[in-house]
């Protein structure tokens, strides 16, 4: 799997993603500087990692969304290849317009770092094919701005279009606002674009990819992507 992990000034989960992919799949990922205009030849997966791009000043992800590399990321997404935005990367994706909505301050008005539970709502995406639908994942979050927001009518539209991939839930899989750590509308923890090849998620799969870190529930995400890309290359 040829992966490009975009590094913005202030990204801090870039090396974690590289490490997770390498320990999960045994493949190396490239770090790509935000100032570059092109993705490395042959890039299959683009990851926008977590962190505090541009210090999270102004609005999380707003300045990163104006980086030169973003044009290439948008083109990449347009070609049908997968783009994954994790945490700050999700915020960048909403700011670029590749995904709808915005991530607002947690309703607790505090940074939250903790394991949480999310339910897999779709397993027909390149990112989730190796999960069961309804499977509950134990996976960390770490953010101040993670409350997913979209105005009511548009929210209804993405619900109808089945664009929600992960929702916060109880350890048993019950979805309810009381299990949402940040107050996200409809307990949304991750969504895709219409085509299903761009995923934004607040939880960190790279932090749940090794048993020594307390969870391997993020592993199938990398494995799903690798399998999906192999299938695509064969056909």
């Amino acid at each position: 799997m040829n992966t490009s992990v975009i590094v913005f000034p202030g990204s801090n989960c870039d090396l974690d993603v590289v490490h997770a992919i390498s320990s999960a799949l045994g493949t190396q990922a490239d770090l790509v500087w935000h100032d570059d205009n092109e993705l490395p030849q042959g890039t299959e997966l683009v990851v926008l990692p977590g962190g505090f791009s541009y210090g999270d000043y102004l609005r999380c992800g707003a300045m990163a969304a104006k980086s030169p590399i973003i044009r290439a990321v948008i083109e990449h997404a347009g070609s049908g290849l997968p783009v994954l935005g994790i945490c700050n990367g999700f915020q960048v994706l909403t700011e670029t317009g590749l995904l709808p909505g915005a991530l607002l301050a947690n309703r607790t008005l505090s940074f939250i770092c903790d394991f949480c539970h999310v339910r897999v709502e779709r397993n027909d995406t390149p990112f989730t094919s190796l999960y069961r639908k309804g499977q509950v994942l134990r996976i960390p979050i770490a953010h101040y701005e993670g409350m997913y927001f979209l105005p009511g009518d548009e929210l209804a539209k993405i619900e109808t279009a089945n664009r929600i991939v992960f929702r916060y839930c109880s350890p048993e899989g019950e979805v309810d606002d009381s299990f949402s750590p940040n107050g996200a509308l409809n307990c949304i923890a991750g969504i895709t674009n219409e085509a299903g090849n761009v995923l934004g998620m607040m939880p960190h799969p790279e932090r749940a990819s090794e048993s020594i870190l307390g969870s391997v529930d993020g592993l199938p995400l990398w494995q799903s992507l690798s399998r999906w890309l192999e299938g695509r290359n064969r056909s």
Partner: protein
Amino acid sequence: MKTDFRSAGLTASEYSAIRELLQREPNFAELRILGVMWSEHCSYKSTRRLLSLFPKDGEQVVQGPGENAGIVDAGDGWGIAFKVESHNHPSAVAPYQGAATGVGGIIRDILAMGARPAALMDGLCLGLKTSSRAAALADGIVKGIAGYGNAVGVPTIGGKTLYSECYNGNPLVNAMCLGTVKLDNIVSSRTALPGHLAVLIGSRTGRDGIAGAAFASSELSDDTRSSRPQVQIGDPFVEKLLIECCLEIHSKGLIVAMQDMGAAGITSSSSEIAAKSGTGIRIEADLVPLREKMEPWEIALSESQERMLLIAEPEHLDEIGSIAAKWQLECAAIGEVTDDGLFVMTSGGSTVVSLPAEMVGGGCPPVLWPSKRPSSETTLPDGGTGPLDSSVIRETLAAILRDPGISDKSAIYKQYDYMVQTGTVVPPGRSVSVFRVRQNGRLIGVTMEADPWKCSIDPFKGAAETFLKALRPLWLSGAAHLGMTNCLNYPSPENPENFWVLEESVKGLAAVAGDLSCPVVSGNVSLYNENPEGKIMPTPMVGVVGLFEKNLLPLEDQSASGREDIFLAGDLPGTLEGSLFARLTGNGVHEGRISYDPAKESSFMSRALETARGDLATCARPIAGGGLLTALSRICISSNMGLTLLLEPPEITPGLLFGEWGPRAVYLVPEGSLNGFLETWDGFPVKKIGFTGDSSLSIGDREILPVKKMQKCWRGE
């Protein structure tokens, strides 16, 4: 212009020493510079002699005190650089920024060794939650640590938090950072040669915190508001860029020496490099990138954050500049290493400062404060103790679990990103924090401890016990200690009784360091922690780093699963004097004998390590604050399981249930390991005291508290 030396912060004898050394009158700028560099904060003039008592050598020590941080060997060619530093005074005045810049400063100390900052720990001594001012300070401090540490991408993996009224107006913020560095690639601050350039990288220089070091060397005045302009503002975004930039420059082999710019900014960083390298240095003030118009002496002393001083060969300047530009940082060659041994600053073509570098960067004459053992023995009333009935045990245990020092700290640590860098193996809230070195896969255990109450009773034994409280959990988890760092937080040394307490504490720490071969590799001193309302208790904060054997996972400290035997390793009764029990109940205030027994500690250490390495127990927990019953409660609370203690009435004393001090631990031992466990502990006091199971904590057939109730107390519900 003639300046009063006192307004520069110098004493009459220091001023005459300066005139004698220089054979002339210092000018205004020189006086200001020496005033700051000879302050307690920069010069350690009151404690240098004491600190020399610390044993600092060991085969695992790669770098001892004297550099920006100490380094110990973590195997396979990798080292751990670590240090703790205080930011008490700034945090008392501006809690968010004070704590934030404390984190930023200690990260740059680690970076200056060429290490990648990998983990943070925080020692916080906070005022009582019942004081609204103290609560506001505590909230600001935690948010400051979170705001900075999270954005800079270094996980806060643990620490120590305690509460006492004596910290209401004078909270202690001791930030510790650990970094990973390849042993053949360590950066030093003593390797500059004449002809090398001094390169400043990072933020522009402004008037932040001018003379902040002098501020940290005096008592807090009544009107802390007026001190505000001195507080620096941190920018974690720039710090993150600075880390990546310096590490990239270092990876290309372009750094000859490096020093972070903390207290006294350009002056301390450049004069220390020159003094340690045995060279001189000339700084041109006009070349320093500025945020605003400033006088040369202000430039020399500005404490603007997020700046590093690099010493580099002239032919590498362009490459360094282009790496800095990539990271959007200011980069300027601001001077040159010289061979005349002088710290020189020029501006507008003329020399404004010319002082021997040795005199600036390490020349303050030591101060020998008089020392006097406090005369009056404290005669606190003692309610006395005897066997306890179960209702008293129940109430006492509930009160202990609700005590802010014991209760759940997750409301604090969940505000910290403790998982970034995907190395956190044991998260905050446990007796040992553990992280993995990504480069070699080895696990590092870290602890932080302070126990000012015990130090108040007996500074020697209290400090020793503080150190041991940091060591024992490491041993129990299976980690062998490598080295120690400490922050000595004390009131004014000018009071002879205060100074005696400080001396005794240092001796206590030094004794443990020597007796158990845990060298002191770095540290920091913070004196004058007092304000008009009073002074703090003696508070040495100790951080210890330990290493796990290859492929060994840490032994659990809070999980029980199914029915297992509970063993107490160590003396049956602990000591009540200085315990949480005594503080809460007023009973047993003078009960028990305080002792420091290094042979016993050493014996405990080897057995604990053998138990963990031999996989002879499923859970081990040190008996510390709140005693045996508290340690057991913590296991019940997190594993949601009860236990029964098989104790006979004459044994059920406060000393057994709630006593502290000394090497004592509880173990959960599965049946299959019983023989091995008992063999390992043969020759050391060890006794089976009960078994796990059920849904309550009981003593014999009497229920003390249901687990559900313990959980509620501990979580403050």
